[in-house]
C-alpha cells in the first residue's frame, strides 16, 4: 500500500456525510439563476465553508463575550468594517425585543434540534409557522445588486414639489391626438423629455465612474431606464436615445416595454445600458422613496 492512501474512514451514526457538490462557486451562481437545479442541502453546507471571521479588537471581542453576543452576527461600522463598542451596544438594543419574544421558542428549538443539521432544521420550521421561498434567479440578482449598490455608492436624496397644472392642461389638449393614434398618454413621457433637457444642461448627472482609470464619463446619449414592477421584482427596461423621440413615440415605447417586462420577454439589450433611471411611484401612492444607484461593471 502506498504512503498517503486512505485506509478507512470512521463515521459516527448521526454524522451526515457532506457530499462534494463538484460545483464551483461560479457555477453555483449560474445554477441559481434558474437553469440547473441545485440541491438546497448543498447550499447549506457551502455556507459553512465561506465563514469569515468578524473584524474586532480583542477588547471588543471580550465585550461581546460578556454581553453574550455572537460577534459574527454584528455588522461593523468602524474602519475597514471593524466592529466597534457602539456597534455591539446598537446590536444589543436592536435585538433585545426580538430576543425576549424568541427566547421561549429558541430554547425549545435548541434543545430539540441541536444535533440535527441545518437542512433538517429548516424543514422542521417550515411546517410550523414559516414559509420558505428560495432566493434565486432575478430576485436573487436584484437583492445582491441592491446590497452592493447601497453599501458601495454614497447616496444623496433630494425631494422637491412641482406645480403641474399647466402640464395637466397640456396633456388634456394632446389627448385628442393620442386617442386618435390609440396611445395611452401618461405623465411619464413628459418627465422623460424634461429630464433629457436637464441632463443636456447638467452633464455630470448623465455620467458614470470608471474606477479602473479614475475617470468620470460624461455621456452625450440619453438612455432612460424606467423602473417597472413585475411579479419577479423590479425590472428596468431602457428607452434608448430618448432625446431623439417624440412624446407619442416615448409613450408607445413605454407601453410596449412594460408589457414585455410583465411577460418576462425582455431581451438583455432592452434592460441594459441606461444612463439615467426614473422610478415612478405615482400609481402606488406616496410622494418619495429611497432609491439605490446602479453599479456598472463596465461603463456604457
Amino acid at each position: 500500500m502506498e504512503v498517503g492512501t486512505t485506509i478507512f474512514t470512521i463515521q459516527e451514526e448521526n454524522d451526515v456525510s457532506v457530499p462534494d457538490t463538484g460545483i464551483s462557486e461560479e457555477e453555483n451562481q449560474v445554477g441559481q439563476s434558474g437553469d440547473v437545479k441545485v440541491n438546497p442541502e448543498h447550499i447549506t453546507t457551502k455556507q459553512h465553508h465561506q465563514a469569515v471571521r468578524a473584524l474586532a479588537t480583542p477588547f471588543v471581542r471580550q465585550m461581546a463575550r460578556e454581553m453574550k453576543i455572537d460577534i459574527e452576527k454584528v455588522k461593523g461600522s468602524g474602519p475597514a468594517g471593524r466592529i466597534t463598542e457602539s456597534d455591539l451596544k446598537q446590536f444589543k438594543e436592536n435585538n433585545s425585543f426580538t430576543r425576549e419574544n424568541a427566547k421561549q421558542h429558541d430554547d425549545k428549538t435548541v434543545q430539540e434540534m441541536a444535533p440535527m443539521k441545518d437542512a433538517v432544521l429548516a424543514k422542521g420550521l417550515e411546517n410550523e409557522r414559516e414559509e420558505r421561498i428560495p432566493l434565486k434567479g432575478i430576485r436573487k440578482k436584484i437583492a445582491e445588486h441592491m446590497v452592493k449598490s447601497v453599501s458601495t455608492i454614497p447616496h444623496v436624496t433630494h425631494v422637491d414639489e412641482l406645480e403641474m397644472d399647466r402640464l395637466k392642461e397640456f396633456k388634456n389638449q394632446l389627448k385628442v391626438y393620442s386617442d386618435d393614434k390609440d396611445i395611452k398618454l401618461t405623465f411619464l413621457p413628459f418627465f422623460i423629455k424634461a429630464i433629457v433637457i436637464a441632463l443636456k444642461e447638467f452633464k455630470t448627472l448623465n455620467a458614470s465612474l470608471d474606477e479602473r482609470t479614475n475617470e468620470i464619463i460624461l455621456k452625450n446619449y440619453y438612455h432612460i431606464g424606467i423602473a417597472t414592477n413585475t411579479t419577479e421584482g423590479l425590472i428596468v427596461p431602457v428607452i434608448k436615445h430618448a432625446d431623439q423621440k417624440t412624446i407619442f413615440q416615448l409613450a408607445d415605447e413605454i407601453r410596449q416595454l412594460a408589457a414585455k417586462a410583465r411577460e418576462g420577454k425582455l431581451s438583455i439589450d432592452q434592460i441594459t445600458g441606461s444612463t439615467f433611471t426614473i422610478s415612478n411611484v405615482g400609481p402606488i401612492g406616496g410622494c418619495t422613496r429611497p432609491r439605490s444607484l446602479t453599479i456598472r461593471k463596465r461603463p456604457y
Partner: protein
Amino acid sequence: MMGKNLTMLQAITEALDQMLGNDDRVMILGEDIGVNGGVFRSTEGLYEKYGNDRVVDTPLAESGIIGSAIGLALNGMLPIVEIQFLAFIYPGFEQLVSHAARMRYRTRGQFGVPLVIRTPYGAGIRGPELHSESVETFFAHTPGLKVVAPSNPYDAKGLLISALEDPDPVIFWNRLNCIGLLRKKFPTKCTEYQSVKQKWSRRKRSDHFCMGAMLREALNATKKIEAEKGWKCEVVDLRTLYPLDRDTIVQSIKKTGRALIVHEAHKTAGLGAEIISIINDEALIYLKAPIKRVTGFDVPVPPFTIEDHYLPTVDRVKQGIVETISF
C-alpha cells in the same frame, strides 16, 4: 536638608558621596573620575575627600576596569564603576556577561558580584557615533544583570543607592542630556528601587511607556495632545528595565486599552517589543488598538549634525498617540 533642588548630576554626586562616607568597602573606578572629577563632573571633589585608594583613576581599558571591579567585588568590596559612555563598554562586555552576570549561578550561590556600573547613554549631546548609543537590550537580555534608567534627579539618587545595596551587578544608566538639565526637589534620603511607581494620572485615553530622557518627549506630547484634542494620557516612566514592572504595565493597559511605547533605542528587538509581549501575555483582551512604538531607527545613531532626525521627537510621539487613539 529637606526640600533642596538638585540637578541629576548633583544628585548622583551626592549619592556617591553618601555611599563612600557610609561604607569603607565602597570604591569608585573609572576613566578621569579622580583628579579630573569626571568628564561630566559627577565625581567632583570625591578624590580630594576620599583619596586615591577609594576613588581610582584607571587606564583607558574597559575590560580591565570591569574585570578589576569583579575581582574587588568577589573579595568583599563594593565597587562603583563609571564607563565614560555606554557604548565604550563593549571591550568590557565580555567581563560583564561572561563573569559578572553569571558568577552567582556559576558558583551555585556561593559568590555574588555586588557591582554597580554607572554609564551615561543616549543621543542628543552632539557626540560622535558610539557616544550616542542606547543599547539597553543587550543588558536586559542577559540573565544576572539588572538595568535601571532613571529620568529625574530624585529617582537617580534613589536608584543609585538601591543599586549599590543589591547583592548582584546592576547597570545604572543616566541619559546624557538629563545630567545637567532637570532639577527636582527631594528629601536627602531615598532608597526605593524596585517598582518605584510614579504616575501622572488623570482620566486616560492612552498610555505611554518610556524611559530616561524620553519621558520629557512623552510628557510634552501628551500635554500638547490634551490641549489640542482634549485627550488625556497616562505616562508610565518604567525606571527599571530589568526587572520590568509588569504590574504597572498591565494595570495601565486595563485602564486605557491602548499603549504607545517610546524609546530612543533601535526598534528591532528593542525593549518595546518585550513590553508588547508582556501586554500580549497578560492583558490582550483589554486592547482596543494595536500597540505602537515610537523609537530610534535600525541604523547606527547618526553623527551630530543629523542626530535629531534619529531621536523620537514630540511630533513623532504626538502622531503616534493620534494613530493609537483614532485607530
